[in-house]
């Protein structure tokens, strides 16, 4: 105890020991006429004051220390550099429809979703940088944010004029991979392209509920077996969410039956707010994904026609640009979408007797919690914030494995013929028989030799 106390007394702070400090303090309390120390409460203040404001003589650094001074690494260097780079991205002309995310984010904030303004600005710059990089891009929009265990994913969706023809198995649908996605885990870092997904992967992903780990190359060990890494499952989930949730106001697009293409309507007028705030005003933009994992039905040539017909009936193709009113209702609700109104709900009429409304409509999908579409009378945006899983109303029930094959029936067993006594040597009955036996054996031998 005494040793410890002695150590404290001798401890050094900027060249003075505790003992010196006490002496100084006592002296100041008594003698200093400018700082009138009167009570115990001033003791601490004075002590602090002396500690901070004393002139302490620091010994000069030795020659060794000066010569080997290490450059201090500025800890924020990387961050500043990346941020500056991102903010300076600019191009003369970009030939693509780039979403005005900065403006649309303000719309999202008004309904209680979205990013900070700074993040929205970074996202806008990222959209620009990807659009500059690839000249085949027609459309680019911010898809949303997928949360993961270790690091979240930010996703950007892109439509190309010429898709990359990666070799795919025969049963895959090219149109399924029409949307191309880029992901990143940090807005200041580079974006990675997600690989294309095959039909089998798409089919398997319907039965998997999984929280992403944050590592794109992680092996997925789930049942049913998914042949691919996390990046494939990520792409499959993103596609499922897009095809279920990307909405457009009625009348914006037109589906041409002959060319099977979606084009803009010639004269488009944004529907009235009253219509937009009901399910009548919205349609699904992308096609529906079949249970098979494709957009159009695949007729496997190896299957019989009956089987194919059965599969087709269980998995019908739906018409394009279908109203969201016809979506399968979720539990006891009417339909799949929850509609809420935000903002100024006051109805105005302008000088020409036309209704003017500043209200903001928010549509939320029950089946995919986190998928929302927000619109006011001028803009609309669909976005996703979530973990990427459906809303399971029932507890998770893992898929039962196949029935175990039963063993075949046993054949009746007959005991081996093991008589107790050795059979007697059979003697031939007569000389004739003996002779015949010998002849027979000789004939067999001759035949074998031939």
């Amino acid at each position, binding site marked *: 105890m005494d040793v410890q106390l002695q150590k404290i007394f001798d401890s050094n702070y900027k060249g003075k020991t505790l003992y010196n400090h006490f002496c100084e303090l006592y002296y100041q309390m008594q003698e200093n006429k400018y700082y009138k120390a009167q009570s115990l409460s001033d003791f601490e203040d004075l002590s602090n004051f002396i500690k901070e404001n004393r002139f302490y003589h620091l010994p000069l650094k030795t020659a060794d220390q000066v010569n080997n001074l290490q450059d201090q690494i500025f800890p924020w260097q990387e961050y500043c550099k990346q941020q500056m780079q991102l903010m300076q991205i600019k191009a003369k002309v970009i030939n693509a429809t780039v979403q005005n995310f900065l403006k649309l984010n303000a719309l999202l904030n008004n309904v209680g979703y979205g990013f900070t303004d700074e993040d929205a600005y970074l996202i806008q710059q990222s959209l620009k940088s990807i659009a500059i990089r690839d000249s085949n891009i027609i459309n680019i929009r911010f898809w949303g944010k997928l949360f993961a265990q270790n690091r979240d994913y930010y996703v950007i969706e892109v439509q190309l004029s010429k898709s990359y023809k990666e070799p795919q198995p025969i049963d895959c649908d090219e149109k399924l991979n029409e949307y191309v996605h880029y992901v990143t885990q940090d807005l200041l870092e580079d974006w990675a392209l997600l690989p294309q997904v095959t039909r089998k992967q798409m089919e398997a992903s319907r039965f998997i509920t999984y929280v992403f780990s944050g590592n794109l190359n992680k092996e997925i060990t789930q049942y049913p077996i998914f042949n691919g890494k996390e990046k494939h499952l990520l792409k499959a989930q993103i596609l499922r969410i897009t095809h279920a949730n990307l909405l457009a106001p009625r009348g914006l697009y037109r589906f041409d039956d002959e060319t099977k293409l979606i084009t803009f309507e010639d004269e488009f007028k944004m529907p009235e707010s009253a219509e937009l705030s009901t399910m009548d005003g919205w349609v699904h933009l992308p096609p529906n994904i079949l249970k098979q994992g494709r957009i159009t039905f695949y007729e496997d040539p190896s299957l019989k026609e009956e089987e194919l017909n059965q599969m087709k009936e269980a998995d019908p193709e739906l018409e394009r640009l279908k109203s969201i009113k016809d979506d399968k209702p979720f539990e006891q609700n009417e339909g799949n979408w929850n509609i809420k109104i935000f903002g100024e709900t006051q109805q105005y009429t302008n000088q020409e007797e036309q209704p003017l409304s500043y209200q903001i409509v928010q549509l939320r999908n029950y089946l995919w919690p986190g998928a929302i579409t927000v619109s006011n009378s001028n803009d609309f945006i669909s976005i996703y914030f979530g973990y990427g*899983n459906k809303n399971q109303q029932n507890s998770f029930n893992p898929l039962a494995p196949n029935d175990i094959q039963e063993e075949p029936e046993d054949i009746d067993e007959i005991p081996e013929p093991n008589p107790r006594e050795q059979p007697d040597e059979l003697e031939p009955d007569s000389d004739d028989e003996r002779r015949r036996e010998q002849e027979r054996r000789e004939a067999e031998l001759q035949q074998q030799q031939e």
Partner: protein
Amino acid sequence: MNISFNDLKFVHQIGQTLNLEERMRLQLAILKIQEHYVFDEVLFWGRVEGVEKDYYIALGIQYKGQYEFPLKKFFWSSNNYHFAELPKYNEEFAQRAETLREPFTGQHEHIVFRTDEEINFEDSLEIPAQLPAKNFSELERLSYIVQSIEFQCASIPIGSYRLTPTHELIKTKFKGVTAELKNYQHFRQPIRKDKQDLIARDEALYRPDFLDSLVDDTPYNQWSVQTDSTKRNITIRNLIWPGYLGYNNDYTFGYAYFGDGIKNSDFEFLL
């Protein structure tokens, strides 16, 4: 979370926020709570989304004069922004409420479970002292969920509070922590034996981590610690209650809940 709502930028990490109307009205409503109740701090706890309307929850904390852990009192309000005390829930049915997957409707009188108890007064000779339990309403479900989340999730970084010699909790000068799970602890009365012993022995006065650590939570993977690009703004999320968010940077810390109030009971199967 503080009602100045400067910390909302952390909540943006899960894609949620409060719009201007909500912020302004909540500030007024939370100040109004202090008209009738005396607390050291009144904080905004979170928003539980419902189909028709949302619920807003506020939390009043009293540190002074409380032995070993501050007193917490919850207040709820619907879209009318008028806070009232969150009532007690019926214990029997509360457990079932945890596994419910239906969303909140927003109508607080909506009945979640019916308690079919009828007592026939004519036949019995004695009239029971208590009336039969009322039906389990959505308000009670909300109460149970809020208190569950607070118990299971509410977390603060180590070094943010200190235990005084009289066993009161006070806030200390907070300097920030690195982004690791071991730097966080539960903001509740410790239930783990070793932490309780620590406090009983008075050793907790000198240690920054005297409450239950998050590292000991089972299942282990339910916590997700993430930083943003600057590596100093840290958010810590819970996967069993998606929507819960704890945050800190070098100056502030706090937590909030922005979600639909449904527990992710399948969590163990999802990894």
